[in-house]
């Protein structure tokens, strides 16, 4: 099944896009780049998981192979969870590569336990957000378009580029309901502390994952009524 993740939309949105951004940031300000690493890791997690969901869900819905899975003694929830986990795994591979690359290249030090503790819930939250949005539409390109709204909203509001604390109050409030904010914050904590923040962020991210999974399953089930 891994062949899916190499379909063009997954490659362009899930792999090429984050790497381009990272390079762009690096070239603009090589000196401050280290500051941006947690945000870029979080962004990679967001793009790679959601792009993967669009492919695994929408391709399979269109080809009818998702339906084939349901002919086996597997319920809709299991199929949905399988998709979420698959996307999170793809994201983990991508993100680990980016994280490892930038840590080694810049000689940063990081608390690996905290890093994983934040990263894994973050991947699950983004993957289930992707899955939820993808089951709402039929085609892969529709899914990519729909996904871009939260993606770009979050990139600009969640502290990837500008710290949340430097934003106007109203936008800060908005940032509080975006999962990427917690991923960025948690990853910063993994690099520079305090560790306590990582625990809180991890829990919030798990909460987001749950909040996306439940309606996603419902929506998918509704397609088979």
């Amino acid at each position: 099944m891994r062949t899916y993740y190499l379909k063009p939309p997954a490659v362009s949105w899930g792999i090429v896009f984050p790497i381009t951004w990272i390079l762009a940031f690096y070239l603009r300000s090589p000196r401050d780049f280290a500051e941006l690493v947690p945000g870029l890791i979080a962004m990679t997690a967001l793009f790679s998981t959601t792009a993967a969901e669009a492919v695994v869900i929408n391709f399979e819905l269109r080809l009818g192979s998702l339906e084939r899975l349901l002919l086996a003694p597997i319920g809709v929830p299991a199929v949905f969870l399988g998709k979420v986990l698959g996307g999170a795994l793809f994201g983990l591979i991508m993100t680990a590569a980016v994280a490892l690359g930038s840590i080694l290249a810049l000689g940063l030090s990081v608390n690996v336990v905290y890093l994983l503790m934040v990263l894994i819930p973050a991947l699950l939250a983004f993957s289930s957000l992707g899955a939820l949005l993808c089951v709402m539409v039929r085609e892969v390109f529709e899914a990519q378009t729909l996904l871009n709204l939260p993606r770009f909203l979050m990139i600009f509001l969640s502290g990837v580029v500008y710290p949340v604390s430097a934003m106007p109050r109203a936008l800060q409030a908005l940032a509080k309901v975006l999962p990427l904010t917690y991923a960025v914050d948690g990853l910063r904590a993994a690099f520079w502390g305090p560790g306590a923040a990582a625990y809180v962020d991890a829990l919030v991210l798990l909460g987001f994952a749950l909040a996306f999974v439940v309606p996603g399953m419902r929506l998918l089930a509704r397609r088979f009524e």
Partner: protein
Amino acid sequence: MNVDRVIQVEGLTKAYGELLAVAAISFEVQEGELFGFLGPNGAGKTTTIRMLTGLARPTSGTARVLGLDIRAQAAQAKRHIGVVPEQSNLYDELSARDNLLFMGKLFGVPRGERRRRAEGLLRMFRLEDRKNSHFAALSRGMKRALTIAAAMVHHPKLLFLDEPTLGLDVAAARSLRALIAGLHDQGVTVFLTTHYLEEAGLLCDRIAILVSGKVVRTGTPAELKRAAEGESVIEVRFGKPVPEARDVFTSRLPGAQVVAMNGHELRILGGDPAQAYRVVFAFSEEKEVAIEAVNTVKPSLEDAFLKITDLSPVAMTQEKGK
């Protein structure tokens, strides 16, 4: 559980908004039977299969598959049923063999056993030399065959086939029918849908005729043929195409059903045979078209179908090109 009756359906209904895709149908399928659901496009065949296999929720009515309620115990029932959907939807990027192995895995067939079964099925479905080809690269007929094989990996007791031979050429359809008959001989209960009358007549032990969401008649091919027994059937062949003949005959022959088989052949079912002959000859003189042949024939399954449904079997097969 009562496994003599592998499928029991009562008052099964599926509404899509205003549209009753399946309208309170009832039927039973016995163990080991090859049961055919025959009906034109949009009759509700696929919808029925989707409900029986847990892919669509019935609006009302009850159905038991292998003694299990399809609402409450669908997951349990799925273990023992195989489904071949209308569209062959295996994974394009996987080889024939890997597709079978994957399906085996989904159904929890142990690894070694999975391999053995995949090999066996590839042999049985004559796909051995293509086992490493990607699904996408197979011919239509091979895809269909592999899709059936994929539905058999977990040794289901009951196999659903939705239009197995749709879109296949004559030879491919024939070999696929032989395979289906082979599965039936091994004791698998088969539920198939088709809109090929001939296919239903050749393969099925019993047929239910479905029109606009309703089962209008159920019986063995022989029983269905009897519906047209005692009716006269006259075949006429003109020397050139006469598109107006059908309407002329219909208006002049009360009580008869007239079907245009093709441009210059017609079939007149029922009514008064003597009058039918007179009308045919009169028509030939009026229009100055030669009659190549007129025969009285025994009613066929086609005639029975026409009598029962009022649908021309020709019109039905013409719709198939999708």
